[in-house]
């Protein structure tokens, strides 16, 4: 039965090659756009190494500071605020403090090399699961002792040392000298938590001023004992902020904020909603709505093309009905044909998405981007393709199959 359907499906598609091409083109193009969008989203926000503990990690990214006059600002918290109030949160497994990556210039043979520099504590390496290519991370002891050690990424190793083993070699960054203790693979720039080219201990900062700052350029990672603890930690953080004693209450009197995931902070940035509960769910809902809207146009086009194609076959429909095909059977047949078409379109879409993502990755527009089509994205794409097939096949097929055979045979649709 299926074989018969497939046989005729192929014949029909080949009969009107141009319109088959149009349908395939529309489906694959939409798929490429959607898949690239999903891959982008997945690349930036979904858990990937080295964020191996993302399921039980929360971050402190932005804090809302208020001055007595009512003026306020959203800023990164300072070291003092995080060290005194976040490191001391109860019931957490580990806390790490690290800076926002800044650009640092080094000179090699007179030529400037610009790298991103991030200062972290030892706990940073214990929460994140980096796969060291050489050596290992620096430790909390290094941080305490103020040792000038550094972890660098592959590309930095190549830029400075031409790719040879570098542990225990020295590197100059922004006027300071560090001993390399480890090398890690490149981290994509969009993964802002781990991202950098060079990582060094916080205590190697050029001045000590950061130790007293409540507003600064630091962020924190909180590792919970289990995912179930996350809500509790959120609550604790919220209430801890209300108990903060500021050094200069005339300057800043209040701080509010949330411990949250990267998705939360991205959602807030897009929806401009920084107060209260995370709008992550709303953000995802908007994205899904956008995806659906994106698919509406091509679906409508497909329906139109299908209606015409089926109308052309009214004679065949009449014959099949005359010989005992029920309306349901006919709808089934046409849906199979349409799903076949859209699966082919889907396949083309996959291949093209692969190519496009590879192109974006290798173009260097976004440093170290590693777009991949993983199984999650595969299933989204498959779902979208099937949605297309069913949606655009059912309506025209149903319309046509309801005709009396005599009407269909006459050719009037």
């Amino acid at each position, binding site marked *: 039965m299926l074989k018969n359907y497939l046989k*005729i499906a192929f014949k029909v598609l080949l009969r009107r090659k141009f319109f088959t091409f149009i349908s395939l083109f529309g489906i694959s193009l939409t798929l490429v756009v959607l898949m690239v969008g999903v891959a982008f989203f997945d690349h930036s926000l979904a858990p990937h190494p080295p964020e191996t503990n993302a399921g039980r990690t929360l971050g402190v990214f932005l804090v809302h500071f208020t001055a007595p006059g009512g003026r306020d600002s959203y800023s990164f918290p300072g070291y003092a605020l995080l060290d005194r109030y976040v490191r001391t949160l109860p019931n957490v497994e580990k806390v790490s403090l690290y800076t926002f990556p800044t650009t640092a210039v080094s000179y090699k043979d007179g030529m400037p090399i610009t790298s991103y520099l991030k200062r972290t504590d030892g706990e940073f390496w214990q929460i994140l699961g980096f796969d060291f290519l050489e050596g290992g991370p620096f430790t909390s002891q290094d941080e305490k002792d103020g040792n000038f050690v550094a972890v660098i990424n592959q590309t930095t190793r190549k830029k400075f040392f031409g790719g040879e083993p570098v542990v225990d070699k020295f590197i100059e960054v922004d006027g300071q000298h560090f001993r390399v203790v480890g090398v890690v693979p490149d981290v994509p720039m969009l993964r802002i938590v781990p991202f950098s080219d060079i990582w060094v201990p916080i205590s190697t900062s050029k001045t000590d001023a950061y130790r007293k700052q409540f507003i600064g350029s630091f962020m924190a990672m909180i590792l919970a004992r289990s995912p179930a603890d996350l809500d509790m930690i959120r609550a604790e953080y919220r209430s801890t902020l209300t108990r903060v004693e500021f050094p200069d209450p005339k300057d800043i009197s209040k701080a509010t904020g949330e411990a949250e995931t990267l998705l939360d902070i991205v959602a807030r940035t897009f929806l401009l909603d920084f107060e209260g509960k995370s709008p992550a769910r709303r953000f995802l809902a908007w994205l899904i709505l956008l995806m659906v809207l994106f698919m509406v146009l091509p679906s409508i086009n497909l329906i139109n093309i299908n209606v015409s194609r089926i109308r052309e076959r009214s*004679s065949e429909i*009449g014959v099949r009905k005359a*010989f*005992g095909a029920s309306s349901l059977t006919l709808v089934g047949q046409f849906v199979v044909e349409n799903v076949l078409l859209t699966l082919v379109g889907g396949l083309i879409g996959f291949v093209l998405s692969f190519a496009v993502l590879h192109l974006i990755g290798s173009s260097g527009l976004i440093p170290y981007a590693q777009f991949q089509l993983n199984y999650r994205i595969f299933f989204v794409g498959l779902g979208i393709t099937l949605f297309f097939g069913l949606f655009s096949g059912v309506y025209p097929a149903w319309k046509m199959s309801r005709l*009396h055979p*005599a009407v269909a045979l006459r050719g009037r649709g």
Partner: protein
Amino acid sequence: MIRLTNVDKVYRTSQIETVALNNINMEVKEGEFISVMGPSGSGKSTLLNVLGLLDVPTRGTVRLNGGEVTSYRDRDIARIRNREIGFIFQTYHLISDLSVLDNVEIPLLYRRLWGSERRKLALAALERVGLSSRVHHFPSQLSGGQQQRVAIARAIVGMPSILLADEPTGNLDSQMGDEIMDILKSLNREEKTTVMMVTHDPRLAAMTMRTVRLFDGRQVN
């Protein structure tokens, strides 16, 4: 077996009304071989369509073996079309994308049969109409007479109890026409198939048991 009561068939567009059938009352008994005659536009094909459940009357009832078909659900009508009825169209209506064998198999697709079963029955039907040598050809490669024979094979492959033929010899020469008539007659005689045939050839009508005459959508004598 088939009974039409007060059947009208009216075609309506936004401005024009065409009466194709007007107050038809007739009965077809099992095993009959009937011809339907009348000038062009008299409603012959329409009558056949109604008898063959290809169309529904605007008014009146159609009864098949006692059951009022006009009120049946689509699924049940489909069943009847599949098991009880075989239709031979004047313009063949073969599916050009399928081979002769695949065309003949179509009615069997809607029954629960294995592919090998279907193949066997289809080949038997083609043998009956003398087309065993053209099984894998496509309709475009056949002559008019051969296409008509494929249409007949398709109509009989499911062994229906009722066969309806709309001008089955209309596009054929007299020799071919006679051959077709022979097949119909043998089906009626041997398998006791009820046959209803539209024709405008009095010679053929004479070979049937009785003739229904139509004029302007009405039965006349």
